[in-house]
């Protein structure tokens, strides 16, 4: 079970901020999220949305383990 976190408008779209999802890769996790919530899936694929695994931005697909933390980050607005 990976810990999944949504930030900014992604959390508003999904209606949740944090959950646990069973997934063995980042692409698999995206597929599961999109299958469950098409609007969220579209938002995750939108321009400027980045994924961080264990607090490091990843651009390619990566494997996830039981303790992985995956965060989806919309464009950062600054403080």
């Amino acid at each position, binding site marked *: 079970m990976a810990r999944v976190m949504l930030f*900014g*408008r992604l959390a508003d779209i999904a209606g949740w901020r944090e959950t646990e999802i069973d997934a063995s890769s980042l692409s698999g996790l995206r597929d599961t999220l999109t299958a469950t919530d098409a609007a969220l899936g579209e938002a995750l694929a939108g321009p400027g949305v980045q994924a961080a695994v264990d*607090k490091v931005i990843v651009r390619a697909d990566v494997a996830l383990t039981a303790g992985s933390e995956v*965060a989806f*980050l919309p464009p*950062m*607005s*600054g*403080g």
Partner: protein
Amino acid sequence: MTVRLQSEPFEPGVLLTRFSAGRGETGAVVSFTGLTRAEHGQTTTLELEAYPGFTDAEIGRIGEAAATRWGLQDWLVVHRVGPIAPGEAVVFVATASAHRREAFEACDHLMDYLKSRAPFWKKEHGPDGARWIEPTDRDRTDAERWET
């Protein structure tokens, strides 16, 4: 060499006093305090979201790079998260160096980064509802001044 994200309000003067104390070889301390503007009633509350452990780590890397680039003796970033009322301080940055030019440039640079590219997500709650804020063109232009 400190980054602090906090939901509690802070007093800029108290931070400046602590930051400036006991500095025998520091000649210059520059501070920036960012306050939420009331925008003549248009903004009621600002809400800032950070990713703890990620946001502070990234600010820390930018701070360390600035310390090296400008030879800072010390630097401090305190940033509010959560709901922030108009007139409250949202960010405080202080830099210390032997001479003033370095402290000014590093503080200016850190603020440009914090305002335009730091990992925060910002929502404004006003009379017409809430909206997520994106960086302004000016924020981008200011930040690009430092890319050499």
